[in-house]
């Protein structure tokens, strides 16, 4: 193998790579956050008696879970164009990730809701709490304790899948790597660097999630 590695090109482009990594984190954190909020409603919808609401949630959840992430991103980027909606690459990836995160997390949340005994709802209602208070103080804290592990997994998944932004010209880590390597043709070096950065980000996120869950959910898990 007569290939000479030129790492100085990568080192010079370090600031841009870090910018890309920042965009990656940015889009995954934001999509996760919005996804969680929507997922709570979808999970409630799936369990609700209201036919329209539960049908809507079901369709959303099943489409999100049964089609490829890349398809969702193409749909947001090219497909919505047919309706005259032209999203920027960042926003297209964001929308697709929110859609998928919400779909997957809704199933997780549903499992979480169902694992909490029905008696707790009636007990907190009999204490005079309104529905908001029941969820805010009794149900959700217990639920998050049970599902923080699958949630962390979903978050890692979002980070990894945001790399699909490379295909729609987004400036997250993978896309930035692609752009930088096309300037210097040091493909191997740049993609090795990107792989290392992704690995570090993933490990870092898992580490932080572990720390937070230990702090938040003291005692039994």
């Amino acid at each position, binding site marked *: 193998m007569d290939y000479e590695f030129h790492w100085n090109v990568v080192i010079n482009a370090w600031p841009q790579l870090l910018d890309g990594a920042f965009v990656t984190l940015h889009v995954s954190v934001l999509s996760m956050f919005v996804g969680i909020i929507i997922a709570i409603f979808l999970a409630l919808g799936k369990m609700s008696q209201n036919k329209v609401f539960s049908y809507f949630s079901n369709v959303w959840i099943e489409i999100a*879970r049964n089609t490829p992430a890349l*398809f969702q991103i193409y749909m947001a980027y090219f497909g919505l164009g047919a309706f005259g909606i032209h999203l920027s690459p960042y926003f297209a990836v964001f929308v697709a990730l929110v859609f998928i995160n919400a779909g997957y997390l809704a199933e997780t949340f549903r499992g979480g809701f169902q694992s909490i005994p029905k008696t707790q709802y009636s007990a907190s209602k009999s204490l005079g709490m309104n529905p908001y208070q029941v969820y805010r103080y009794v149900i959700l804290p217990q639920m998050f304790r049970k599902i923080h592990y699958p949630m962390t997994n979903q978050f890692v998944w979002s980070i990894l899948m945001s790399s699909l932004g490379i295909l729609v010209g987004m400036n997250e880590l993978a896309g930035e790597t692609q752009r930088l390597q096309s300037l210097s043709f040091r493909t191997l070096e740049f993609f090795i660097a*990107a792989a290392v950065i992704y690995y570090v980000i993933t490990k870092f996120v898992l580490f932080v999630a572990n720390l937070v869950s230990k702090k938040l959910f003291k005692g039994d898990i």
Partner: protein
Amino acid sequence: MSLFTPLSWGDTGFIFQGILNTIYISVVAIVIGSILGLIIGFFRAESGKFGNMLIGGVLDILRSVPLIIQLVLFTTFMGVAGFPLDPFVAGSIVLSLYTMAFMSEVFRAGFESVHDSMVTAARSLGMTYWQTVRYIRTPIGLRAVLPSWIGVALSVIKDSALVSVIGYMELLRTSEQLISRTQQPLEILIGVGIFYFIISYPLSLYGKRLERKMAL
């Protein structure tokens, strides 16, 4: 003459080829990934801490780096090393290894779910070590993880769409080419989405039903 021609029946063959290619590479990756995953999963359930950590670390890298980066990296690396690979071969290798990383965890959990007492009982009936593996641990362990296996297999079918980046003409890439020719993204993409859904949804329902049945 207009630059963009509308979709025609002639394109069905093109799309159909894409569908076949998607199925082809998914099946290859699932089969090879499952076999390798089974071996590694068994090895990990059996081996001590040190060997486990070593293999676990390597598998962890496969799971913590985006598939798309792995695909580009592997193809470039092979090209640079002087063995340029066909997109299908490169895609199958990367996708199989990626599948293996997930399957090995599934199978390890399966092997570990078989109680020691069952193995001891089998040994006391005069079975050899390999007989307990063959007749007790593998069948019982594999049955326990069938729902998770289906889950991983489904995600491989969906992830196979990413092999398009290295130039393999699977369904999503053929549709992308059709889109750039016809400029009718919505119709084509919806068709593609329906195809994935038709494959994935029944399997996921089956997996859920199995899971429920086993929980009882």
